[in-house]
């Protein structure tokens, strides 16, 4: 097989993998704060790309401003989902799959609202910087891939210092370690849950904005990306943000290799099979011990 | 004495901590045996080893002479060792009667086909189960709440119901994990009567208990643990005077 082709696939795998990783981290942030797996995560990814597009085309906002507004909008939607859907069930101590269903339903509602408010056409965003790809021998690296990798790494570093150095970040970590003890220490556990949803929604939106120039966004693009993000989180060991990021890259690379070797039709089969392999044989993930 | 249960050199380590350390004793096939000890003495770990929820690091558990050390709880139950839980684990959505009927699982048969076609023997078995469940509820004094959902019973009644459910499995030895925890004096008295009655009917009882009064009232044999080790064994009277036991409880 052509080595250049393999390298080219590797690069695109890594860059889409970073996006999966960011979505996966979004799952982890909520899971750590509450034990909830938020199946509406894909909606935030969709909002990121979609809102940026609408703000740019309909309201003529500059790219960067539109992107920031989209991220904030996603954060607000995250807070609304938490308050209206998750909170009442959380207070009732509802069963795990009730929570899954409710967040899945929230996903459908947001998806449909986007369909009604915008339309059903796939949309794309221009690359962040419109410069010809860098050529390294026979392979081309486009700048969007660099943007994706660079932004992802910056976000990981920022998150890391948020969780380690800020009061709020430390409080969120305390809640994830032991919610009861944290509550006794005077940490407002319930506010932390809202905050987790906001943070996670904003992460999803960033992922959506980063990936839209390389692919597209549409009202129903959220679920497949949420599933990829979830698989990333499982590979990394659920609840471990760094693991989710590594898992995302692993998933992206394996997926692009599957496309190269087996054809585009096997993209999803490869990802889902990888998920099953991990669930059956190493449910604690790459970085996991026994949780 | 004939031993129904024999614990031989049971040891369980959690990392560096030795929760149960080289404990051996025998449980008579008649009467009530109690395991006592201060908090953190390793009682619950020992209990979990015997019932099969966790394997011992070393040592063996013999049930009527058969080595059952590695068996899972359901396999031990099938051989006549049935336990209750410190935090009551009833089937909340079922009525008291239905909870007890689940206990007959091992002593009855029938799968999907019996459920769908209800042959005469299955109907008869269902009637028998209904009768026996009523008798067991009567034994623990819960006849009045037979049709009540388990989730709404007061705590004391939930404990008694769990014992009735365990008895439905016709155990050769019944393991009770702190049965008096959370009971008031009256309920505790009712429980003591019930346990004595069960033992009198020929079922060996092994219980772990905090409540010294209950233990001294009903136990025929007492095993005392401290820091994971067995420090004494004997009749309640003998154990009460044992210097090692006094030291463990007072010092």
């Amino acid at each position, binding site marked *: 097989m052509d080595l250049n082709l393999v390298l080219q696939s590797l690069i695109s795998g890594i860059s889409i993998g970073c996006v999966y990783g960011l979505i996966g981290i979004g799952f982890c942030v909520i899971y750590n704060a509450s034990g909830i797996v938020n199946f509406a995560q894909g909606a935030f990814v969709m909002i990121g790309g979609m809102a940026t597009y609408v703000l740019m085309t309909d309201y003529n906002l500059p790219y960067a401003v539109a992107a920031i507004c989209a991220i904030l909008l996603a954060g607000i939607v995250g807070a609304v989902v938490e308050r209206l859907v998750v909170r009442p*069930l959380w207070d009732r101590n509802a069963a*795990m799959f009730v929570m899954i269903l409710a967040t899945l339903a929230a996903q459908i509602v947001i998806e449909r609202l986007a369909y009604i408010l915008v339309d059903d056409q796939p949309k794309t965003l221009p690359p962040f910087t419109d410069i010809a790809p860098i050529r390294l021998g026979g392979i081309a690296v486009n700048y969007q891939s660099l943007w994706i990798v660079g932004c992802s790494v910056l976000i990981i570093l920022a998150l890391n210092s948020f969780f380690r150095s800020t009061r709020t970040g430390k409080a969120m970590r305390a809640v994830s370690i032991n919610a009861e003890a944290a509550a006794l220490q005077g940490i407002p556990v319930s506010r932390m849950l809202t905050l987790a949803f906001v943070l996670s929604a904003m992460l999803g939106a960033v992922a959506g904005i980063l990936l839209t120039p390389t692919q597209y966004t549409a009202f129903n693009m959220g679920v497949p990306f949420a599933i990829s993000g979830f698989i990333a989180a499982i590979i990394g060991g659920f609840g471990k943000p760094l693991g989710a990021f590594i898992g995302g890259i692993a998933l992206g690379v394996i997926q692009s290799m599957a496309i190269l070797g087996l054809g585009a039709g096997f993209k999803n089969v490869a990802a889902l099979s990888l998920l099953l392999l991990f669930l059956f044989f190493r449910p604690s993930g790459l970085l996991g011990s026994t949780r | 004495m004939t031993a129904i249960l024999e614990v031989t050199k049971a040891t369980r380590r959690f990392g560096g901590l030795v929760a149960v350390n080289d404990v051996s004793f025998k449980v008579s096939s008649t009467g009530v045996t109690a395991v006592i000890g201060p908090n953190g003495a390793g009682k619950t770990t020992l209990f979990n080893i015997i019932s099969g929820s966790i394997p011992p690091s070393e040592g063996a558990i013999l049930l009527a002479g058969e080595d059952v050390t590695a068996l899972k709880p359901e396999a031990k139950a099938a051989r006549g060792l049935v336990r209750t839980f410190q935090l009551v684990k009833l089937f909340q959505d079922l009525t008291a009667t239905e909870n007890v009927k689940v206990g007959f699982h091992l002593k009855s048969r029938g799968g999907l086909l019996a459920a769908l076609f209800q042959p005469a023997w299955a109907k008869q078995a269902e009637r028998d189960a209904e009768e026996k469940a009523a008798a067991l509820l009567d034994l623990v004094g819960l006849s009045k709440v037979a049709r009540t959902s388990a989730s709404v019973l007061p705590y004391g009644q939930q404990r008694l119901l769990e014992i009735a459910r365990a008895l439905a499995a016709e155990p050769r030895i019944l393991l009770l994990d702190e049965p008096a925890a959370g009971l008031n004096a009256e309920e505790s008295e009712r429980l003591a009567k019930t346990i004595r009655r069960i033992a009198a009917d020929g079922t060996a009882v092994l219980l772990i208990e905090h409540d010294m009064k209950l233990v001294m009232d009903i136990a025929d044999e007492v095993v005392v643990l401290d820091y994971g080790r067995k420090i004494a064994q004997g009749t309640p009277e003998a154990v009460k005077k044992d210097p090692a036991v006094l030291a463990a409880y007072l010092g």
Partner: protein
Amino acid sequence: MTNSPSTTSPEAPGLARPHTRHFGSAAVWALSAAIIGYALVFGGYMATIVAFALIYAVFVSGLNVFMGLTAQVSFGQSAFAAIGGYTSAVLTTTYEWAPLPGMVAGLVFALVAAFLIGFPTLRLKGHYLAMATLAIGLITYEIAVEWESVTQGYLGISGIPPLGIGPFEAVSDRAILSVLSVIVVILAFAVTRIRRSRLGRAFSAVAGSEEAAGALGINVSRYKLVSFLIAAAIASLSGSLFVHVVGYVSPEVFGLHMVILAFTMVYIGGLGTVAGPLIGALIISILPEVFRGMKDYQDLAYGVTMILILIYAPKGIAGVAGALDARRSA
């Protein structure tokens, strides 16, 4: 924080108590019968809608055994509907089998698949179980798309003969509705009997506390598998019924949409109740017709309804009716 197992669901409704009056449940059955009766008498478009609802009621009945009685979760039951549906479709078109043997073959395939899948999958708990089953459903969908030599991919298989045994064929709306109604009633009857049997009590025990069930000698993994197999068999049956009634099958039929619709039905009807799958399927199928002309808002309405039901009426319609009965007799 642990991965909470799905077993202790505080809102899973209990078994119907004997010796109570059943006005509420009777009302639910009467309403269902009235809707089916209306479709039988007036036929036309309504008959088509109700026929779909009844096929879904079959599928949901299976889901209800696994989720309602045993308190497990599967987002992948569509896989077994697909196996049943495609087996029936391929055998009756390419190989010109009669519908009934085709259906039985589908059932066998679905059971074998469920058995092989069940072993590794049912050891998982909570979110892991949910995700693994979802993956199985999605993989089956992908296979239906990609395995073109057998399934004809997105194009689908058409020209599937109607339901029939020997000379009798269910072609008219009335015949189809009658056959489906009989199947739904038989299933409801079967679920009632299962609930009151040793098997059903073992399911309830697994649902209530796996640890306590094990302590009473119940082989938890075995009963989970049995429950999974029953659900898979019923799902396969619903898939076969679908392809014969519609005459056509494509991967889209068994997509994620089917799973979400089925979950909405089981929750609206009432998880773990006998009448729940039927009334849930009827309401969810007919409601969109009430709001016809608002097609864009249908899925939105599903989503909102689902959230409201989960928050405010977690026991569903049949569950609420049952609770009213219990209160009256208390």
